[in-house]
């Protein structure tokens, strides 16, 4: 469970009072709060944070590839509450075998492009996304460029092919 120094902060305390199983770990590093949640709890936790803790802004969604470790991906939600002047990073571990998460576009409309970018760059799918396409790379592109096993140079496409 969460360490005491984190549970003394208002947001983790409110989450623990609402649903003790919603968060499975967290850390407070250099004043930045990180909470870990699970795939199942993600949508309800996001709705709770937006509704009850005024996290009206989703600053960004991104991903970290921990290759070759498993679970391979960490999807990170950078949340921000303007009234409380509070920032929070919500993380979900995603295994490479079943790289998918429920979409949070229903909670914040702005999640749309960020989730498309994570899919484009890392290949993590978002279930229930209204427009699940690539965003930066062309539609015919194979592979996901920001994965650690995707080469920086020497992949099979070049500008001459186009």
């Amino acid at each position, binding site marked *: 469970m969460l360490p005491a120094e984190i549970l003394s902060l208002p947001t983790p305390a409110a989450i623990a009072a609402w649903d003790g199983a919603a968060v499975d770990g967290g850390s407070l590093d250099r004043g930045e709060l990180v909470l870990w949640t699970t795939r199942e709890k993600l949508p309800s936790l996001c709705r709770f944070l937006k509704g009850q803790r005024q996290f009206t802004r989703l*600053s960004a969604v991104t991903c*970290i590839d921990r290759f070759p470790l498993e679970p391979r991906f960490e999807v990170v939600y950078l949340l921000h509450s303007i009234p409380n002047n509070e920032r929070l990073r919500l993380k979900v571990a995603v295994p490479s075998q079943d790289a998918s998460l429920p979409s949070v576009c229903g909670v914040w409309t702005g999640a749309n492009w960020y989730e498309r970018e994570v899919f484009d760059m890392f290949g993590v799918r978002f279930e229930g996304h209204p427009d699940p396409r690539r965003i930066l790379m062309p539609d015919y592109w194979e592979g996901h460029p920001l994965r650690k096993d995707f080469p920086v140079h020497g992949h099979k496409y070049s500008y001459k092919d186009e």
Partner: protein
Amino acid sequence: MQPTDTALDPRLAQETPEAPGAPRRMVLNMGPQHPSTHGVLRVVLELDGEIVTKARPEIGYLHTGIEKQAEALGWQQVVTLTDRMDYLANLSNNLAYALSVEKLLGIEIPPMAQWMRVLLAELCRINSHVVWLGTHALDLGAMTVFFYCFREREELLRIFEMFSGQRMMTSYIRIGGLALEPPRGWDRAVRNFIRGLPAKVDEYEALLKENPIFLKRTQGVAELPLERLLDLGVTGPMIRAAGLAWDIRKAEPYSSYDQFHFQIPVRTESDVYARFLVRMEEIRQSARIVEQALDGMPEGPWKADAPHALLPDREKMKTQMEALIYHFKIVTEGMRVPAGEAYVPVESPRGEIGFYVVSDGSSQPWRVFMRTPSFGNLQALPELFEGRLIADTIAALGSMDFVLGDVDR
């Protein structure tokens, strides 16, 4: 396989409804090479007469994989990549990246460097806003303002060149402080520029405020309520023009911004005209900050004393054994950053910019995620366009003030 046009975008073929009796819609491609998109943005518009019924932005034409490249470079080298994302707010980008990495390194930045960073970031904001003003006015048919604004920009670029030797890709703010000692006479050059600026800004504002064509094309155009903007992830002047006094410089002060006096301009109309007024006032407030920084610039070193991370002075390296060892280690192994992650948001001219840096303890970043304001702001485009005239889309597009290099990275 050679991609055909419909393979590239199969939706193009589906766009026109074939059903008999359905309203006739026309699909129009705006961009990727369109003068008012200020870069290569493509918007697929579905039109009913002159009314836009659907707008779909397509981005990625300027994607250069900066985040991927950052993982293959050393920590200090990534600074040069940050210039190239948003080429109008290069110093804000440098600053945001440097702050995040310095947080991981735990380096204390001397006051002089902090104040100089504030001064440069504000000059950069003025530069970005005058370029925006000139091009926005040009889009709406007011050509004179464009020439005046680019005259100011030229003076600013000369100042940046004086500091760093480069006009646009300055890379002047580095991890640990500044890249070089500020040049002799820098304060005179900045003071000469900033003294004349407020009167000029008044003049430019009057040129547009008393221009009936500009007023007709901006007032009441592309309004969107604050809740929608926040929900879509918009930041910066667009939010402040919708009535929310939220500025990261005040809310989460960084780099000694808490020692400066300035106001956050706010309007409530949330139309193109309000965004124009907010940005004009921001130029004046930035000029105030620059003047305060000029008057109170502290004495002292321009980079941090952190031998484990920054190259030692040449003189020390030649005379002290320890400095020589550090120099050797940094040159051969690169700067090592302790494992961990940090995100420090910064108010760039366009909104919240932040670098989410993840380190595994080595001399290269494990991941650098760039939360760029233009990407977030551009998501509001369909809601700003839909239900409005084609002519208004140009005004709406200009009022968002995005840089495509910042969107695509």
